[in-house]
């Protein structure tokens, strides 16, 4: 038992040694060690506070050796994915990480877009340039392969760029994400994602606050007077919402239109607040978000004078209560004729 364990350990050590110590100096392990060595030296250089150039040069050598070494190792071990050698793609990825990783910010976009092209360069340079930097002329078969590969890598690069273009659309029009992309011939959303609310919800919340300022907790007659000039109030509210939203300026703000309509309901009113989306939408008639508020007159207890004569009616005050939900409805709240 102990013997078996011992021989197993010994075997493992021998294999590890074979892996770590290359059979020849001209092997991929050497290049990886060079990369490690260069990286350690760059750390040392940074500790010793040498010039940025030294540190940068050593780090660059380290990255290039890493890309070369990993590519070589994969090639030596014949790593294949569906019959396609993956070594140049991995080397290209490492080089892109190195080239664009230090940019900060949105570095992933240029890195991914450049990846296929850099990988193509990794394949093409050894066949086109010989060791003494003179131009080699490969046989026509290889040239044909290279031309095909270049077109293919340009296509892959375009696909990545198209992906990032879609992301920039979504950043400009965040409400697009809230819609269904089931009918699209281009895009697919992997199911199970949390889907953001359309920005119209924010518009409705801002509008609710403005309405509250205007008609909540006010004498009822003044509320009735306020309601007489509906069109004017709509303009005012729209303008104020726009100026409030203007701080977080987004392209899609102009595509949301705010509207409201009071419907009489007993003594008071039901106020329907609508945020109408006039941008691209999945359903042909578009959609709108609806918030329902109740505007009711209430009698204030405690304000009645002690010696109130009979028939004295206290001033009624208004109260505005809004529901939290903003259900989404297809179409236009005022019918089809207004649209367009």
């Amino acid at each position, binding site marked *: 038992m102990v013997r078996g364990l011992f021989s197993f350990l010994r075997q493992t050590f021998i294999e590890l040694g074979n892996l770590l110590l290359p059979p020849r100096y001209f092997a991929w392990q050497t290049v990886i060690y060079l990369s490690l060595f260069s990286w350690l030296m760059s750390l040392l250089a940074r500790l010793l506070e040498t010039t940025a150039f030294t540190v940068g040069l050593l780090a660059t050598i380290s990255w290039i050796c890493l890309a070369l070494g990993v590519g070589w190792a994969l090639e030596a071990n014949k790593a294949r994915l569906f019959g396609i050698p993956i070594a140049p793609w991995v080397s290209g990825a490492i080089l892109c990480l190195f080239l664009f990783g230090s940019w900060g910010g949105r570095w992933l976009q240029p890195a991914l877009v450049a990846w296929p092209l850099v990988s193509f360069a990794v394949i093409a340079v050894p066949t086109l340039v010989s060791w003494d930097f003179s131009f080699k002329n490969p046989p026509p078969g290889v040239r044909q392969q290279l031309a095909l590969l270049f077109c293919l890598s340009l296509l892959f690069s375009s*696909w990545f760029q198209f992906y990032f273009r*879609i992301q920039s659309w979504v950043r400009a029009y965040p409400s697009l994400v809230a819609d269904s992309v089931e*009918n699209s011939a*281009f895009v697919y959303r992997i199911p199970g994602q*949390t889907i953001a609310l359309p920005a119209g919800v924010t518009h409705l919340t801002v509008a609710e606050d403005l309405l509250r300022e205007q008609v909540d907790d006010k004498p009822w007659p003044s509320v009735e007077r306020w309601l007489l000039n509906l069109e004017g109030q709509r303009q005012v509210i729209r303008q104020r919402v726009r100026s409030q939203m203007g701080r977080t300026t987004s392209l899609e703000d102009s595509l949301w239109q705010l509207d409201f309509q009071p419907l009489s309901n007993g003594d008071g009113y039901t106020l329907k607040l609508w945020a109408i989306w006039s*941008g691209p939408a999945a359903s042909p008639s578009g959609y709108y978000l609806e918030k329902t508020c109740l505007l009711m007159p209430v009698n204030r207890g405690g304000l009645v004078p002690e010696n109130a004569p009979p028939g004295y009616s206290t001033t009624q005050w208004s109260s505005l209560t809004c529901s939290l939900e903003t259900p989404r409805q297809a179409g236009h709240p005022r019918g089809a004729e207004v649209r367009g």
Partner: protein
Amino acid sequence: MPLNDLLSELGIMPLRAIAFQSLLLMVAIVLEAMVLRQQLRLGYRTSMQYAATLNLLATSLGWVAFLAIEAVLPLALRSQIISYVLFNRFYTNSWLDALPVVVVVVAIAAFFITYWIKLQGLLWLLQLLGQKPVDTTPEAIEDNRRQRYERARRAQVEEQRGNSPRALAVLQANALSFTAILVLLLVVNQTGVVGW
């Protein structure tokens, strides 16, 4: 949940476009290879390689052109493109009435530009593949220069005679692949296969 976070981070991906384009490219390459093989009397392998290279070149240049032009279009037109890409339909705005005309004009322009790119691409490809290895000794260069000059003269004459079957073959190939793609797109749109 980290996986969910990652998915949300990835957002909307153009996977259907990639799948569909790969399919259309395969159809186009096979059809064009057939035409090139018949018209230019090429081998099976050569015609496939030519057709694949030309189609991939035209497609990737098309993408580059689309991505460049889309960025500078007016906002209203851009939002129509967004609507088409995300929801497969145009929406009501000031461009809606002009769009059918725009689409047809763009499609016809795409056909001729693709044709030109493919023809040029075929010339470049033949040039790329037909080069003889360059000798570097002085006499060889002198010799080579004379040879090249003569070859160029001969090529000019040949171009005048030899260009037309090539141009015709590429035109036929392009027309065939565009027709096939159009039919496929119509069928897919009619049957609603897109809503996979």
